[in-house]
């Protein structure tokens, strides 16, 4: 291959490093005015009255919008259309938008916010999942399971409890993974404007222009054909820009009303309120193990703190259990989950969407299992790896799996055999693994159309233009698409012009989330490029007087043996032969084998795998933690551009380490006797702690290539999976260093100290959640695994026994 696998400067690299990339905030249009949102100061309240007269009269104010202007709800998932652009009567978290002021500049709009008079009737806020379970009233939403329980899910893939009961060893552990947020350096921003034909255009830093397009049509009650959404290059997304945002809807409406361009840039605090970040998850694992270290069954329960709205929450909740089965052989599995509403900014998808939390628990529990069975944690895992081309208990189809090589690589490179359990007190190594999707098998709204489309245009000058709805969020999707097309056509990737993320110009791609773009848009691009290639080959073959199959494409030439044409010459011949040259390609994932209700979350065309070893240094006197080095190996299938792939691995390690050690989106409840306030503890980049380059360890990154038949050239994802093993590997390394278990995230020096003090007193050297509350999980859906005679559907409870 000429392009794929070769380290290259990314195609959009020059624009970025020379400061020429136009982010949403760089847009300034003639006659543009500015929007600011008034947000609720109450965590939970009803709006009794809202008077905008004074704000409207303020000099420089053009328009004030309120909930009355937005009668239609929206939501990213069809089942949870529970948000209003501006809350008409019920506010559900501090920061919930209630009004929008459009003025000649930001300053004036900000001043006018203070002139809007809102009378609230405060309600009791629900601060925690435990409270949400205990207090059905006041209800945060009128829909849901009951009270403040948003969603309950329960599945039984084989009788796991029976298998656990019959095991040689049973492990029961409770873990907690604190919520955290995405922290993209670019705050959300958008500009809405009417074009010369009166159609609406929205430029927005979004990862999902297609979904924003649909939501705008719904909320503004306009034909979608009158709306164009352009995703500007995102200065980081990480899932934080995969939802429909209030400000996008309000800016669009204001532009329609005023006929002038309207701009809004959230400030950092507002980004913390927009959130949609990692759900806090409490989890309980009961796992059965044979004496030689095989898993017999696992029963996982999760309690998910959803915040104030649905967002992606139903899917996130499924993901707290869906991928536990794809790394290690697990014959039986029971999974129960609950998502509750609380009066905090809504949680949603963040890099790894719902899966880092249970992965944290699972990989620490394996470490505990290895210790009890006196086995090496690496050996324990190697002996129970899931098999390639297999089905899991919950009916996921695994294709390629390079986890064995990943584990062996990090074990060897970290000198694990000689150093694990052998380092001096205060130093330790920890190992963990992970797996992730390469694109969700199903779109978020039901349809039978492809998930991704690519269109190629070939100009007689030899210029190749690629159109695709995929959005460049810094991950390098434009580069991947250019690389794939240029590989097929034998040209230089810098020759390909990418037009992406524009609903007015590009075929639909569902967006940059769930690690789907390289695999899905990549396959669509191959298909389109191959169609063009055969036309070019046919035309060139005629000219060179050979059979089309013998024509090769490389280095900008179309050749047969020593005879060759330039690429542009071949294009001219083809255009003369076929007319204007263009081709489309599209991609739909294979059908998932699971047919039960709920089987839609978890299937993917392929899974990526990662293993990681972390070295930790812990000061026994202060609990101070230092991470000197991390070894990581990621099974990427095939690397398209190693520079970008490594960047993604290292970025994931950064983010995983930051979650492991510092990040927490936490809230402060003031003394209830004195106040109803429930506020974000530290909505600022300074006080919301995340690691910086100074805390980054030395990194040893290896990409493992085990091509997957479903991936373009065998490629799998790399944007999210490498995050997963990092937090549990840190926890395991700290255990190796000082013998204490921190069963919750983040792992801070004070927790380590507390555990060390417990240890000194002879108590269990552990800090973590002590109990799992009673959650009213429903009777599980019974879905027998294939090896127990199942066919992928659920069976009724009474005939379950007959099937087994």
């Amino acid at each position, binding site marked *: 291959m000429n392009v794929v696998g070769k380290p290259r400067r990314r195609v959009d690299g020059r624009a970025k490093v020379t400061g020429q990339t136009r982010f949403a905030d760089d847009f300034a249009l003639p006659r543009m005015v500015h929007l600011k949102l008034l947000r609720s100061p109450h965590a939970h309240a009803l709006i009794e009255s809202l008077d905008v007269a004074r704000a409207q009269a303020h000099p420089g104010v053009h328009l004030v919008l309120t909930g009355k202007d937005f009668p239609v709800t929206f939501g990213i998932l069809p089942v949870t259309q529970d948000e209003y652009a501006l809350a008409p009567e019920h506010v559900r978290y501090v920061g919930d938008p209630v009004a929008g002021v459009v003025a000649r500049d930001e300053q004036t709009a900000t001043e006018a916010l203070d002139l809007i008079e809102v009378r609230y009737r405060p309600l009791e806020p629900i601060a925690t999942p435990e409270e949400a379970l205990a207090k059905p009233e006041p209800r945060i939403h009128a829909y849901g399971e009951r009270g403040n329980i948003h969603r309950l899910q329960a599945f039984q893939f084989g009788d796991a409890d029976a298998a656990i009961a019959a095991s040689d060893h049973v492990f029961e552990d409770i873990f907690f993974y604190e919520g955290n947020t995405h922290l993209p350096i670019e705050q959300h921003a958008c500009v809405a404007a009417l074009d010369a034909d009166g159609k609406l255009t929205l430029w927005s830093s979004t990862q999902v222009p297609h979904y924003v397009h649909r939501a705008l049509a719904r909320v503004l009650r306009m034909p979608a054909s009158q709306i164009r959404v352009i995703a500007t290059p995102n200065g980081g997304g990480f899932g934080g820009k995969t939802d429909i945002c209030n400000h996008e809807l309000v800016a669009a409406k204001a532009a329609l009303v005023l006929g002038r361009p309207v701009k809004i840039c959230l400030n950092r605090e507002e980004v913390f309120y927009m959130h949609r970040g990692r759900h806090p998850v409490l989890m309980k694992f009961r796992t059965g193990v044979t004496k030689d270290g095989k898993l017999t069954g696992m029963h996982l329960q999760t309690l998910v703190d959803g915040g104030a709205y649905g967002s992606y929450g139903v899917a996130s909740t499924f993901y707290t259990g869906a991928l536990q089965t794809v790394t290690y052989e697990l014959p039986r599995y029971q999974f129960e989950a609950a998502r509750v509403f609380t009066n905090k900014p809504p949680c949603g998808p963040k890099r790894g969407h719902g899966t880092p939390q249970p992965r944290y628990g699972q990989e620490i529990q394996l470490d505990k299992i290895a210790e009890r069975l006196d086995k090496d944690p690496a050996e324990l895992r190697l002996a129970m790896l899931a098999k390639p081309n297999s089905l899991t208990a919950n009916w996921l189809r695994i294709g390629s799996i390079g986890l064995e090589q990943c584990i062996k690589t990090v074990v060897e490179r970290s000198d694990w055999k000689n150093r694990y359990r052998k380092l001096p007190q205060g130093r330790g190594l920890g190992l963990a693994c992970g797996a992730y999707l390469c694109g969700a098998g199903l779109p978020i709204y039901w349809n039978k159309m492809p998930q991704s489309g690519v269109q190629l245009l070939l100009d007689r000058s030899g210029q190749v233009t690629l159109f695709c709805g995929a959005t460049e969020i810094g991950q390098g999707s434009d580069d991947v698409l250019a690389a794939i097309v240029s590989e097929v056509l034998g040209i230089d990737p810098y020759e390909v012009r990418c037009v992406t993320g524009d609903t007015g110009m590009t075929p639909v791609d569902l967006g940059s989330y769930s690690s789907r773009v390289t695999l899905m848009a990549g396959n669509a691009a191959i298909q389109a490029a191959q169609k063009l290639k055969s036309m070019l080959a046919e035309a060139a073959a005629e000219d060179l007087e050979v059979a089309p199959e013998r024509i090769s494409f490389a280095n900008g030439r179309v050749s047969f043996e020593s005879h060759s044409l330039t690429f542009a010459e071949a294009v001219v011949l083809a255009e003369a032969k076929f007319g204007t040259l263009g081709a489309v390609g599209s991609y739909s994932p294979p059908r998932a084998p699971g047919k039960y209700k709920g089987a839609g979350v978890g299937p993917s065309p392929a899974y990526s795998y990662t293993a990681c070893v972390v070295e930790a240094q812990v000061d026994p006197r202060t609990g101070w933690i230092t991470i000197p080095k991390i070894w990581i190996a990621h099974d990427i299938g095939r690397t398209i551009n190693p520079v970008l792939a490594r960047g993604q691995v290292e970025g994931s390690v950064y983010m995983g380490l930051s979650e492991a050690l510092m990040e927490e989106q936490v809230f402060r409840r003031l003394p209830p006797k004195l106040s109803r306030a429930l*506020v974000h503890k530290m909505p600022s980049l300074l006080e919301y702690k995340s690691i*910086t380059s*100074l805390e980054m360890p030395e990194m040893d990154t290896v990409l493992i290539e085990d091509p997957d038949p479903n991936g373009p050239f065998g490629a799998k994802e790399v944007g999210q999976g490498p995050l997963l093993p990092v937090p549990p590997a840190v926890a395991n390394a700290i255990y190796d260093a000082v013998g204490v278990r921190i069963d919750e995230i983040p792992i801070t020096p*004070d927790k380590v100290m507390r555990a060390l003090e417990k240890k000194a007193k002879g108590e269990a050297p552990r800090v973590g959640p002590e109990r799992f509350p009673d959650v009213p999980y429903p009777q599980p859906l019974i879905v027998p695994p294939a090896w127990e005679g199942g066919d992928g559907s659920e069976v009724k409870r009474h005939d379950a026994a007959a099937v087994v």
Partner: protein
Amino acid sequence: MMRLPWFDYRAPRTLSEAARILAGEGPNAALIAGGTDLLPNMKRRQSAPKVLVSLRRIPELKRNGAVLGAGITLTEIVRKPELPRGLRQAAAQVATVHLRNMGTIGGNLCLDTRCNYYNQNYEWRKAIDFCLKKDGDICWVATASKRCVAMSSTDCAPALLALGARVTLVSANGERELPLEELYNNDGIDYLHRRPDEILTEVHCANAPSTYWKLRRRGAFDFPVLGVAAALIDGSARLALGAVASRPFLVAKANDFLRGKQLTDDVIDEAGRIAASRAKPMDNADLDLYWRKEVTAAFVAYALRELRGDDLRETRSRIARYEPA
């Protein structure tokens, strides 16, 4: 983006003119040096002075000899090896490179006190109905307290206290020189014994062996949640603490204990114990409050051991994540 409130800007070229403007404007005016503390506070509407009087064009404040002008930047301090090590270590750990290039020693010594309930923007503070320090009538950190317990968060002050520094204050009515210690008041609101018409102009500080240790989450740019300064003055070690009260202070009891003693391991441990008992961290800053108190003794030990000549570079690089000054 958060925007500044409107203000008038004055940039006098002499100290006396600055003092005159300040006297004329009264409490409506605020001094601005580097602005690295003042401007973020103004964006959050913690203050909205009508007039800003800039000190940047006043040559007298740029004196950089035996006496330090208040307008000397922290970067200039870090780059001046003749200055005491403790002061340079403190300055080097303030904020980030960019902020140190702008931030001055005068501004650092007059830095506003900090609290998690206060260093928030206007909307956030509105959501908690404000607090004593600004616009409210209760202290959320200590609800029974009549006093604001916001933390002194300057790094250079403890270093200079341990070194026995003195400062000069100038107003339209004259000037006075006082020990730095007397500049500070243990009150989160009235944290300085500085009249509103006074300008801090000079810092006088002799060189002496000294060290500064700072506890914070991240070496890149966090405020201190504990600062320990130690200096060897007339043969005795002297300790000052920062970020554990509303003022930085010399730890009298520990210093009495240390007077005339060799810094043996036992002496260091005992000094750590005494100093830690004087630390009163509050639940209004980063990291667990009890833990912060617990590790005070360890940080005192680092400072004293470094002062007696131990090589603590490895420890320092683990804590600071880099080697300052």
